[in-house]
Structure formats: structure tokens, C-alpha cells
């Protein structure tokens, strides 16, 4: 069509520019949030009851350090046991044999369905119902026997209770990951002569990992915080150490701030570790830009994806 309509302007497409839509309300909200945060921070800093100098003196207190160590090692031990236990339970749940899958499902139902705190107290008080652990072989006699009170120290009760509880969650996570791997992968591995074990280790699990790692990272972070429950049965974790100090000195607030600081610090380190793990297990995806810190930075100051605020 060569007919030129009347009244239509001649436009050079090369000079066209886009005027972005302004977002006045978003700007207002940002200002309100910034002012609010500043006010809270200011009152926290200048309120003498927070006793910031006391916080500073206790930050690296040996008792606190010891408690932090207990909390981290408890989290680590429980998570390792839970990953092993959860993987076994998941493999059993996926087994075609009902004799394996039903007990595994019952295990998950039982330990995931009861609160961690209740299990903790239950295991700690096991000696009330079971006095002794003994192994007895007919015709040979008692091989060994120990009193429950000697075995069920607070730390053992904590490890047993929390790893069983956590295994229940891990089993579901691992099962979901394994099921997300296409059936054809196992068949292709089998056709290449791989044994079921080899195929699981080299083909299925590495692919399942991508589904398993993110929720496992969240679980570990959750677990770190859940371990504070063990202070109830007198395991000397971070919270218990702080409590034992402020029970004497009545510096409750500063010590709880110390505890908060350390939990946040460990969680932050774990988040960065999780980022690198996730990146490793998705190496066939498009590579991420920049390092973990750049990503945290970007996430912290991102108002909306791919868009600078008005």
C-alpha cells in the first residue's frame, strides 16, 4: 500500500524512545520502609537496656564458644545420620517389595508425625520404661547388658531423637528426588550393563541430587535452629550456655542477642555453602553469573526482577 493517510506523522523508527512508567506508590512504600527500619535500628542502638557493650564482651566468651561448637557438631552429626537413614528409608519405600516399603512408610509416618520436642523428652526418659539394653543369645547367655541410664545421656538422647525425626523428613525429600528422575535413565544404564547399585550411584542419584539439595539445605538450616530444643534436656548447646550465664548474671537480653548473632552467622555461612552445592549439581544448566556474594547482594537489593526501581 503506497497510499499515505492524511494527518499521519512521519516517524523515524530509529529515534523512537520508551518512557518508562513511573511507580509513585512503590517509591512511597520504599521511603516508608526505610524510615521505619531506621527508627527501629536507632531505638535498638540507643536503648541502654540492650546493653550492647555487654553483648560485645560475651560474643567470644569461652562458654558461648563451647555451646556454639556443641550446636554445630550436633547439627552435623544429626544431619549425616538423617541423610543416611532417610536415603535408606527412601530406597525401601520405593522398593517393589511390600515387606520393605510398608515398614519404611510406617517409620516416616511415626517420626515425622510427632513433634521433635516430644520425641526428645521421650528418648531422654526412656529409662522409665526400659531399664536395660541386653543382647541375649539362646544357648550362649547374655552377651552384654547396659543400663539405659548409662547409655541415654542427654547428648545421646538428643542425637537419637533428632536424627530419627530428621530422617523422616529426609526420607520424603530423597524419595521425591529419586522419583523425579526419568524411568528411561535407569533403563539406559541397565542396557549399558550397569548394575542397579552402579546405576543408582552414577546415574540416578546425581540427577536426583538437583531436586534433593535445595530442600536439604533448608532442612539443615531448620535443624540448626531446632537443636536449640535440646537445652530442655540439659545438653550444653548455644542456647543452654547462654541461659546458664544469664541465670547467674541476669543479663538476659544481651545474652539472647549473642545467641541470635551466632545463629544468624552460621545460617548465613550455610546459605553460601548451599549455593555452591546447588551450582555444582546443576553444572549442565546455564552457568550462573558472578559468585555467591554477588548473588546475595543482588537478591538483597532486588526490588523486582530485571528492573531498576522507578
Amino acid at each position, binding site marked *: 500500500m503506497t497510499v499515505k493517510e492524511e494527518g499521519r506523522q512521519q516517524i523515524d523508527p530509529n529515534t523512537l524512545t520508551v518512557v518508562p512508567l513511573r511507580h509513585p506508590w512503590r517509591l512511597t512504600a520504599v521511603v516508608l520502609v526505610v524510615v521505619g527500619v531506621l527508627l527501629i535500628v536507632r531505638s535498638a542502638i540507643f536503648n541502654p537496656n540492650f546493653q550492647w557493650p555487654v553483648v560485645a564482651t560475651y560474643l567470644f566468651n569461652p562458654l558461648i564458644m563451647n555451646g556454639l561448637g556443641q550446636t554445630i557438631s550436633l547439627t552435623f552429626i544429626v544431619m549425616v545420620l538423617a541423610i543416611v537413614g532417610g536415603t535408606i528409608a527412601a530406597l525401601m519405600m520405593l522398593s517393589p517389595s511390600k515387606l520393605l516399603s510398608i515398614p519404611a512408610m510406617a517409620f516416616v509416618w511415626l517420626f515425622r508425625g510427632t513433634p521433635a520436642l516430644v520425641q526428645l523428652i521421650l528418648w531422654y526418659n526412656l529409662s522409665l520404661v526400659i531399664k536395660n539394653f541386653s543382647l541375649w543369645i539362646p544357648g550362649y547367655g547374655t552377651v552384654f547388658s547396659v543400663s539405659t541410664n548409662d547409655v541415654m545421656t542427654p547428648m545421646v538422647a538428643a542425637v537419637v531423637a533428632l536424627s530419627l525425626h530428621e530422617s523422616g523428613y529426609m526420607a520424603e525429600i530423597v524419595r521425591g528426588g529419586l522419583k523425579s528422575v*526419568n524411568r*528411561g*535413565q535407569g*533403563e*539406559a*544404564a*541397565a*542396557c*549399558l*550393563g*550397569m*548394575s*542397579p547399585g*552402579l546405576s543408582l550411584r*552414577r*546415574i540416578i542419584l*546425581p*540427577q536426583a541430587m*538437583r531436586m534433593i539439595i535445595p530442600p536439604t539445605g533448608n532442612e539443615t538450616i531448620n535443624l540448626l535452629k531446632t537443636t536449640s530444643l535440646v537445652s530442655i534436656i540439659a545438653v550444653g548447646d548455644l542456647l543452654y550456655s547462654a541461659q546458664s550465664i544469664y541465670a547467674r548474671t541476669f543479663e538476659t537480653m544481651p545474652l539472647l542477642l549473642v545467641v541470635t548473632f551466632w545463629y544468624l552467622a552460621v545460617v548465613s555461612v550455610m546459605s553460601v555453602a548451599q549455593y555452591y552445592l546447588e551450582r555444582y*549439581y546443576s*553444572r*549442565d544448566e546455564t552457568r550462573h553469573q558472578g559468585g555467591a556474594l554477588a548473588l546475595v547482594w543482588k537478591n538483597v537489593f532486588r526490588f523486582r526482577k530485571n528492573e531498576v526501581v522507578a
Partner: protein
Amino acid sequence: MNTVATHHSRFGVAPTTMVYAAGIRKSYGNLQVLKGVDLTVPVGSVACIIGPSGSGKSTFLRCINHLEEINGGLLLVDGDFVGYRLEDNKLHELPPSAICKRRAEIGMVFQQFNLFPHLTVLENLIEAPIRVRKEPAAKATAKAMALLDRVGLADKRHAFPKQLSGGQQQRVAIARALAMSPKVLLFDEPTSALDPELVGEVLEVMKDLAKEGITMIVVTHEIGFAREVADQLIFMDGGIVVESGDPRKMIASPKSPRTKEFLARVL
């Protein structure tokens, strides 16, 4: 080289037979999918299986490498059972490790490629030779590179599967199967998941393999390929082999009315 006593003579099977199937039956619950399938594939020959959907072609192929257990019949690959051991006139089920060893000699190429997405192209090819056959890494890599060269994808060795086109993925899958130096290659509709313009490159690779004398059993809807490459054409319907023979003769003048009807639909 083959130290396993074969049952060629015992069952009256010619020693030049790679795959021998007689009266293969297979059911899923009450559904009988294979109702006595007979097939003989000589060493170095190409057999193409055609037939309507649901006729049991895939099931039969999966029985050959024991991905599915058969419920009856005699199935020998290179003169021996795949999932069993014959002793005292009884078939004893083999342990998984022994089945794996036998399966490694039977390559399979899937409709959906089934490449390992977390491994690069090269890693896909060397994984089984190194882990299953315990080949040294250098030797496995050299062989893999030669195979990639053969399917025209040597420059993609460090790519991940999802960075390749469907046709390229299927060529890698063929190379991966060849990396185990199988005695026979099974193809289950290798071009059915491909865009039409990518079918040709995969068929070219398969034609080359046929020329080199690799024994192949190919389930396909590509009648043109079957006519050109196959030594025998097998038409399956309703869980049995309805008709088999020379592909050109069979396509030109099918004996059974069912074959005639099917060919009329797909040609």
C-alpha cells in the same frame, strides 16, 4: 574368546544366528501382549519390525535384553540365554551382576534418547566402558572420540545433551551404545521423537552401521529405510509375527490381508 558354552547345537540353532526367538510369550497381568513370537536374526543382518501401535513391538525388543521377563518360549542371544542359566533341564534365574554382563553385549537405542543429562557427550560414552568393562580411561576416551567422529559429533564432545538437537542426541545415543561393542543393537523407534528434517541424519548413521555388518533389530515406522536397509521385514500385529520375509517383496506384494491393510495406511 567365548568361554560360555552356547546352546546353538543343543536347540538346533545355526551358529550363525545372533538372536533366536521361538514362541515368546509375555503377559502383563491378564493382558497377554506377546502370544508366541518367532524370529531368527542371523549375524550381521538387519531386521526391521513394523506393526500397529500396541502390537507388542517394544515389549518384544525389551524381552530380548531382559528388561522384561518372558513368561514362555525360547530366547537366545548369541547362542545363550540372557537372564537365565540352563542346568539339569531347568532355567535358573541369574543374579543381577550376571544379567548385567549379558546386557552389556546387547546395545539399545531408545525413542527418547535417554542420554544422561548430567554428563557431557564424551562422559556419556565412556561411563559404561570405564565402570562396567573396567577399560582404562585413555583407551575408552580414544574409542569414544573415534565413535563421535563416526557419527559426526566430535566437536560436541564437551556439550551437555540438552545443548544438542534431537538428531544430534540420537546420534550420541547410538555412539554410546556402540562404545560397549555390542554383539547386536536394538532400536526402538529411533526417529519417532524427531522433527522430520532431523530424521535423515539418524537414518544415515544407521545405514552406515548396517553396511559395516552390525547386527541390528529396528522397530520403525520408516518403511523407506526398511526397504533399503533391512535383510528381513517383520510385520507384527496382536502379539504375533503375522508375516516376515524379504522387505522389497513383502512391501510390493504382502501375503496377509492385515499386512496389506497396514502397509496401505503407512505408505
